[in-house]
């Protein structure tokens, strides 16, 4: 399943990332995963939150430049070789990863890998054929 991610453009300015997280905190929005990509004078922060469109509106209201990006969330066992299996599957199907980040799900001893790529639907299909599970937005918050 596809998952929505917030991509927020941030110029490299003191406290700007803090301001982003404070807007979300004030409105009781929990951040599930985060990744920060930066260049010399600007960056993009990527967030997985529960109510993506509400968070997006709130941030826009606070003059942030935000876009919703579709990604996939792949669930794997938190054991060696699991991520490699996912990537091998994608590679063998000539699916190229643009960027990825991961977090560990303690309750179920699973790891979740967020992957951004082209041809998301095909990717979900080939992973499924290999018995690899992709999560829905709701499942991320179970």
């Amino acid at each position, binding site marked *: 399943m596809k998952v929505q991610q917030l*991509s927020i*453009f*941030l*110029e490299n*300015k003191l406290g*700007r990332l803090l301001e982003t997280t404070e807007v979300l905190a004030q409105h009781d929005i929990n951040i599930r995963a985060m990744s920060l*990509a930066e*260049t010399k*004078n*600007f960056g*993009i922060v990527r967030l997985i939150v529960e109510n993506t469109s509400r968070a997006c509106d709130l941030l*826009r209201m606070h*003059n*942030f*430049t*935000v*876009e*919703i*990006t579709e990604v996939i969330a792949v669930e794997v066992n938190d054991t060696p070789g699991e991520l490699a299996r996912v990537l091998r599957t994608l590679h063998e199907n000539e699916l190229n990863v*643009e960027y990825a980040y991961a977090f560990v799900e303690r309750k179920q001893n699973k790891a979740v890998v967020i992957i951004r790529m082209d041809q998301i639907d095909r990717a979900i299909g080939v992973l499924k054929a290999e018995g690899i599970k992709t999560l829905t937005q709701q499942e991320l918050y179970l």
Partner: protein
Amino acid sequence: MFWDKPLETIDCRSLQILQLDRINTALERIAATPGYKSFYDSKKYKIKPLSSLEQMKDLPFTTKQDLRNSYPSGFLVTDMEKVVRMHSSSGTTGIPTVIYHTKNDIDNWSSLIARCLCMIGMSDKDVFQNMMTYGMFTGGLGLHYGAEKLGAMVIPAGAGNTERQLKFIKDFKTTVVHITPSYALHVSEIIEQRNLLDGLSLRIALMGAEPYTEATRLKLEERLRIDVINSYGLSEMNGPGVAFECLEKEGMHVWEDNYYVEIVDTKTGMPLPDGEEGELVLSAINREAMPILRYRTHDLAFIYPERCACGRTHRKISRIKGRTDDMFIIGGVNIFPSQIEEVLMKLPQVGSNYVIILSKKGSLDKLSVRIEVNPDLFAGDLRHLTQLKETITRKLREEILINPTIELVEPGSLPPSQGKAVRVIDNRDKTV
């Protein structure tokens, strides 16, 4: 030393007669050229011979926009076959201005520059390294021809490639260089660091194309143990050779037999007396292919009221004190903010606000542009933003010939523009 002593020391009365004669010749040729005459018709000015120079003030001004409107050859008063060269400067709206020269014009312009060079003690014994950009920019070819006419050996080095410049200066025993002040500071720093000065024969640096202060001159003179000579010109008036310092180094002589010089009130356009600061208005009164009368330079200066101790009767103008428009000069290149705006506003990903920041890196000018991104076209990808940055850098470099640093910022983070926004922040004085 004089190149043409009778003309350089001409008495005031004879000079005025010569000027009036040349202005009337120019007017006659303009009146005979429909494309040029229509310009004066549109200003409701009926061309007729002037009976005194007093009447010059009634002649309409010519602006850069007027030249642009005449593109490509509306103000050419000779047959194209007689033209041997054109020079062009970049326009603020994509249309360049073009200046044409006949063989006589080039010859005459070269002689004016030979006059300048002779005035500061250059001769055929000198080795002249021309470290200005060649091509459309008049600084390169203008001085090149003048120095050749004088008989000096010319090294047409062009700008940049400092290692090669230094090798030439050393190996060919260069005595005179023509260079922008910012590049001179850079080169002189290297000469100082490497302790090269004792092996060099440098004695004079001619500097123009960008404004610099008296403090910079003194610094360079001390650092390189040379005379630094101030030069002024603009492509509409041929280029270099319009005004040049003598060895008194106080004010630049305008060659009044070729250029009619006025200082006018920036608001009323009325001529001001010598000594008062205002906008420099110049007329190229001795050009065959393309006379231009009462051209508004947008440069602020004053005319020295007193005679020069060097014996030349041609009056002197001060250093350029500033501009009446928003043009700025960086690394010797004239840039209007509108040129940058033009490039940026063609890109939909660019937001509505930007600011141009000028600073110094060492002794070199640096141009950065901070640009707000358009939130509606933000794709959420780093890749797109990096591409946008590269696109802007490339397109700006194509337009202004300077490599800019691009900073993308969030919408709303720059001060909002109110009416005529301050889009240029010049920190060069602060960072030097």
